[in-house]
């Protein structure tokens, strides 16, 4: 894998072959994806099911709030790196309120008061700065990514409270809880996706790539306040291709 990554880093610019083949590392990716899927089916999903069965949803959302709060410094860092002072103030406020009145982050008092969390990470920041994502990349255990987002994940992990201030064993423990809690919240969604999809690998790849493009563009998801009517931001889709019939250009109007 390292060899392929370095070929990408040293070789042709990402855009030149991204257009030709959206997934040049497909065979390696599919192997890792199958591995991750096996780990999930045999280990993570059963653990998450037991967790989901044992803990009431209120407790699960508290755990989610707690780990989200610990990760807020990373979000704050990316607000600042992307030049978003408004969001930075929001996330700082969230951290201050939730860490104190919210009992060390267990309760999202800021969210209840209308200060919503922002969703920024280093992969997005690099994207905003113009760094191309590079080819789709599936990481062992970590799942869908890209060279850019993989670098971002490392940086973000270092910028969380547990990644930076706490010792390694505690940090690993918190990360494990975070992972199981997240997986428990996705039990139905993942089951549905596995059953409904025609090619689960392609389903995940397409969703990941579209979702990340949207996040980097801060897409069409309107920020609180401004009405998107006549909004300037372009959708992250390759529209002309997506919403165009091949035979339409020839004037062949199908009357359905």
């Amino acid at each position, binding site marked *: 894998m390292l060899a392929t990554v370095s070929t990408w880093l040293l070789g042709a610019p990402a855009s030149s072959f991204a257009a030709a083949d959206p997934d040049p590392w497909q065979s390696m990716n599919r192997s890792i994806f199958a591995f991750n899927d096996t780990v999930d089916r045999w280990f993570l999903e*059963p653990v998450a*099911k*037991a967790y*989901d*069965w044992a803990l009431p949803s209120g407790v699960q959302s508290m755990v989610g709030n707690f780990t989200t709060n610990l990760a807020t410094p990373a979000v704050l860092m990316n607000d600042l790196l992307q030049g978003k002072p408004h969001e930075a103030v929001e996330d700082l406020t969230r951290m201050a309120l939730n860490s104190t009145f919210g009992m060390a982050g267990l309760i999202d008092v800021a969210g209840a008061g209308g200060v*919503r969390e922002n969703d920024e990470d280093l992969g997005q920041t690099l994207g905003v700065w113009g760094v191309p994502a590079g080819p789709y990349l599936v990481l062992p255990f970590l799942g869908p990514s890209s060279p850019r987002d993989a670098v971002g994940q490392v940086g973000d992990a270092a910028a969380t409270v547990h990644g930076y201030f706490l010792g390694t064993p505690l940090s690993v423990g918190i990360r494990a809880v975070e992972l199981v809690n997240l997986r428990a919240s996705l039990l*139905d969604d993942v089951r*549905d996706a596995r059953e*409904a*999809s*025609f*090619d689960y690998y*392609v*389903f995940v*790849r*397409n*969703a990941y790539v*579209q*979702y990340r*493009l*949207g*996040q980097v563009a801060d*897409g*069409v*998801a*309107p920020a609180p306040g401004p*009405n*998107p*009517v*006549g*909004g300037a931001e372009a*959708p*992250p*889709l390759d*529209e*002309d*291709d*997506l*919403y*165009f*019939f*091949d*035979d339409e250009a020839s004037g062949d109007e*199908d009357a*359905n």
Partner: protein
Amino acid sequence: MQTDRVFEVARRATLAVALIVCAIQVPLAAAAEPDTAPALAATQEAIDAVLAVLREDGLTADERRARIEKIAYDRFDFSTMSKLVLGRNRSRFSAEDQQRFADLFRSYLSNQYGHRVESYEQESIEVLGARAESRGDVTVFTKVVGGEYDGATIDYRMRDTGGTWRVIDVIIEQVSLVSNYRDQFGEVIEREGPAGLLGQLEEKNAKGVADESPPPAAPGS
């Protein structure tokens, strides 16, 4: 006095600029608004109709689903969707197979999204606005309010089909359904040909009907 003249000139210049800006913007606004209004209205109507069915008391799950299916069949342009989803591969299907695919894909979507109706928990949908797109399409932006998916964005790509605005794509949290299925179907068609895709759809639809409303699998219960 000299300063008076300066102010006078500045005032006139400001007025002139303001007039020019208005002259440019008024026709733009006038042209943009009627474009999106019918699509917005159609989306709002469809959402209201679906929410009314979800909130109506005393319906069985099957009745609820049948009514929502009817709304969906009126409001979605499944014919266009199935063409978009096949993309370039459509030429590999015979005319009959294209029709067969359209029917199977419609049933598939109905099965997949129909069973989600049962997990409705009083969330509502807020229509945020709309944007005119290329080819005369309009995207209507909405957001889920409340429930498990609070804050999730759902955008509807609408197209005017003979005077009626219908949905041709649903974009959930920036992920276009048409794009996602196009990629998956492209992969299946490449490996197994059109017949392989039709077979898989039939298989999934048969399964969807067989285990209609399966009990949620709760471990340890």
